């Protein structure tokens, strides 16, 4: 496996006392485990605030994990010293959701893409320029646009610049954190196709974080559904879309709009809002909103278990 995440946890202090002692914790990520093989894409889905972005950042140690192991190419990167981590960063990168705040407005597009090369002392100025031109072409930008500033590009083009920056060091794994959610629908398809082309060509692996199931269905090989900091269902794409087992996954699927106005669907599979990640419900975290909840769901926490080969679900009722 290229990436192995084991029991990853991240808590943030929610409230601190008079002497800086932490009173409450936000359990943003609460014991998440998964792995991603070479050339594969894991789609990580869930509502906003479920901790999916925190998972992506913790894997790259942009946020320090509270505990757990992240094995990349066989090495646990949690607690790795800064110089070794820096070396690994050449092979694991990130693309952000917001195409505006992800590019420094004062830097030219060419310099943004060349910066990773510069930081790692790769090649001289002329060679870097050539490499940057090649990367521009690779992501579908014109090399003559290298001298322009970010505000002179459209949202989709800016996202291509972000992807180009992530590709500059020749990574094997990219965290794509909602890479198309801020784009127009017509542009979304272009950016997704670009990501998939890059995967087909270079064998890249992705952790594709999204709340958009249609997009996830298109790009992923496997899908993991997160709820309140935990994975509640994890299996292959075809299985999860054909036979979702967790009531939360089913609710998400039912919420996907169908392009046929004559189809009438029963709404409200899920009642209410996501509970607070500080004060979480006892038992199954999903029980207050679950249409199928039984008495034991209120007291007993369901473990993530393999109900069928390669299909993990955290629900007492799943068989």
């Amino acid at each position, binding site marked *: 496996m290229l990436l192995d995440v084991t029991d990853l946890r991240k808590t943030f202090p929610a409230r601190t006392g008079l002497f800086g002692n932490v009173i409450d914790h936000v359990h943003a990520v609460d014991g998440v485990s998964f792995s991603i093989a070479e050339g594969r894409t894991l789609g990580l889905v869930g509502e906003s605030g479920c901790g999916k972005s925190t998972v992506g950042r913790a894997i790259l140690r942009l946020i320090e994990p509270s505990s757990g192991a992240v094995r990349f190419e066989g090495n646990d990167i949690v607690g790795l010293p800064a110089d070794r981590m*820096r070396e690994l960063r050449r092979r694991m990168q990130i693309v952000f959701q917001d195409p505006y705040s992800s*590019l420094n407005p004062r830097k030219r597009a060419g310099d943004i893409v060349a910066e990773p090369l510069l930081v790692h002392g790769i090649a001289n100025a002329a060679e870097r320029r050539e490499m940057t031109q090649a990367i521009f072409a690779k992501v579908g930008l014109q090399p003559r646009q290298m001298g322009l500033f970010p505000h002179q590009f459209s949202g989709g083009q800016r996202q291509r610049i972000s992807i180009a920056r992530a590709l500059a060091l020749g990574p094997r794994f990219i965290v794509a954190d909602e890479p198309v959610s801020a784009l127009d629908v017509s542009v979304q398809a272009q950016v997704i196709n670009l990501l998939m082309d890059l995967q087909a060509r270079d064998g890249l692996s992705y952790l594709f974080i999204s709340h958009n199931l249609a997009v996830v269905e298109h790009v992923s090989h496997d899908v993991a559904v997160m709820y309140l900091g935990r994975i509640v269902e994890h299996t292959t794409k075809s299985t999860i879309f054909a036979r979702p087992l967790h009531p939360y996954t089913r609710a998400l699927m039912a919420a996907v709009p169908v392009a046929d106005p004559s189809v009438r669907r029963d709404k409200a599979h899920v009642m209410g809002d996501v509970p607070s990640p500080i004060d979480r419900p006892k038992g199954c975290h999903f029980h207050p909103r679950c249409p199928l909840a039984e008495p034991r769901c209120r007291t007993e926490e369901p473990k993530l278990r393999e109900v069928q080969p390669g299909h993990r679900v955290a629900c007492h009722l799943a068989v």
Partner: protein
Amino acid sequence: MTDALYYARRYPLGVIGALILIVFVLTAIFAGVVAPMDPLTTNARASLAPPSHIYWIGADMMGRDMLSRMIHGARISLAVALGATCIGSGLGAMLGLASGYLGGWFDLIVQRIAEIMQSLPLLVMALVITASLGPSLTNTIIAIAIPLIPNVARVIRANVLSLRELNYVEAARAIGMGRTRIALVHIFPNTLAPLIVLATAQLGSTILTEASLSFLGLGVPEPYPSWGRMLSESAAEYIHSAPWLVIFPGLAISMVVFGANLFGDALRDILDPRQGD
């Protein structure tokens, strides 16, 4: 060169501001050549002489030529204004950047010290500093610069706090860039806009602080003229009987502040790539 012409055409007000500043700075540098009379020579018969063909903008109580005093005063006033603003804004920006970006204990200590300094009036602090250092031009600049530091540091810190959460800073960390480099390459250039606005706004107040210090005998020593002192010494007594003693130093101060503001605005826009094309 073509760049300069391009910007000059785009920002005519900036050009006016720059010209005003250049004229004042040249006047200050060549004060000895430009001034028609000696600024320190007194003449009892010309006491409070109104503007005339000899004393173009009048003479003060001691009969010294106001124009010559104004021209020589430009040296001190501009040295204090530019010196104190540059030192104060520069140190303040560095502290604010470090404080906001590093956070933790360093931030806590810097911010508490800044709060203590801000709770004292600027003039009182400048008074204490000059009183302990002794009156001289350099000490006056230092005394005025130090109280500026906390204001700048706080504004820049607040700016840095919002900038450091942006994705491009995270992206820089993801490519393995060091903290210092991120602060200098990605954060500092984006704080320039508020820094320039703040610095130009402070320029005027430094001239007036110098005036108060000199008036109290703690600024630049007598009899060397500065605009601020000329203004503050005459304001109460001669505003009705000899208004030229008040109007012209006041005008000079206003013009410098005005010029600096125009120039600062244009500079801020020129340094912002989003304003281009």
